[in-house]
């Protein structure tokens, strides 16, 4: 088996959600209300950690490290 190097090809997952709670949707923050602890729990399941982050009024963007 070829010596394994670092796998460059990525896996990509896109999930869409909907909510019928007007209060929640009214805030228009939705998933952005997830606290960092919850995000870290999800990233633990994926063996990743956040190394850098940036955000604007539309969304949050994180650079991850495996």
């Amino acid at each position: 088996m070829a010596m394994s190097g670092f796998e460059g090809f990525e896996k990509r997952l896109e999930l869409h959600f909907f909510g019928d709670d007007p209060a929640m949707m009214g805030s228009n923050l939705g998933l952005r209300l997830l606290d960092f602890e919850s995000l870290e729990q999800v990233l633990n399941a994926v063996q990743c950690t956040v190394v850098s982050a940036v955000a604007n009024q539309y969304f949050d963007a994180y650079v991850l490290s495996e």
Partner: protein
Amino acid sequence: SSLFVYPTKIIIKTCGTTQLLKSIRPLIHHACNLGLSLCSCRYTRGSFIFPKAQPSPHTSFKEEVLYLEDTVPDNLCYRKASVMPSKITNHSWHVFTACDESHIIPSDHDIYTVEVCMTDLDRASARKFFLPPGGGNKSGDVAGKEMTKITGIGEINPRAMICDFAFDPCGYSMNGIHNDRYSTIHVTPEDGFSYASFECVGSIFDDDDIEHLVGTLRRAVQVFRPASLSVSTTCASHEVWPRVAHALEPIGLKCRSCAADEFPSAGSIVFQTFTARRK
């Protein structure tokens, strides 16, 4: 790897040997606590260079699909899995989508996603993504900013706010954000299996040069000058995929294959492969 969190959409893109699909259950749980339910799911990937190194549930596309079928809630009953072929050996595009009855047709008709996978990078270009021996005593952030600058990545979309990071001893990741649009680049520059990816979202109505797909794609590929690359476009409209060849052929890349398929909630996915024209 990257994570993007919108109010009703999450995108996670990871390289290496992560168990990405294991994020679905905790995400559904946390979203439920916010009053949100999953309505559509899309999983895509190219062909791994080291498939035997992948952990379960990623040891094969068959195993991934079984895991997704088992994990995605039953109300997302419109499902499709497909391996889209190319003429480049062991380079296929793997797609799984699932959605509920009210999301079969993509809601944003004009929005597209472009996923570019580049291999056999130009060596001089790849070398720019190595830290100096000993790491150069710089943080990943500082070294990442320097790589963004010396490679011209910052010029792909000059209006984007960039968040970048360099890994020790080599490797680089960046996210660009501009309004509600993201772009992202990941580089593993090791010789023999050098790889870079570029991904961005846009609208078929973009017409200014910076946002326009043709200019963006051309600038991104010219950073790495790969010997081969694949481009997957996802859009409800068929206006996007012809622009890819229009962007790449003038910079010496010839289209070698094109496969298209329709998927619930994603619309049309077109997978094209290109190789550098022989000198």
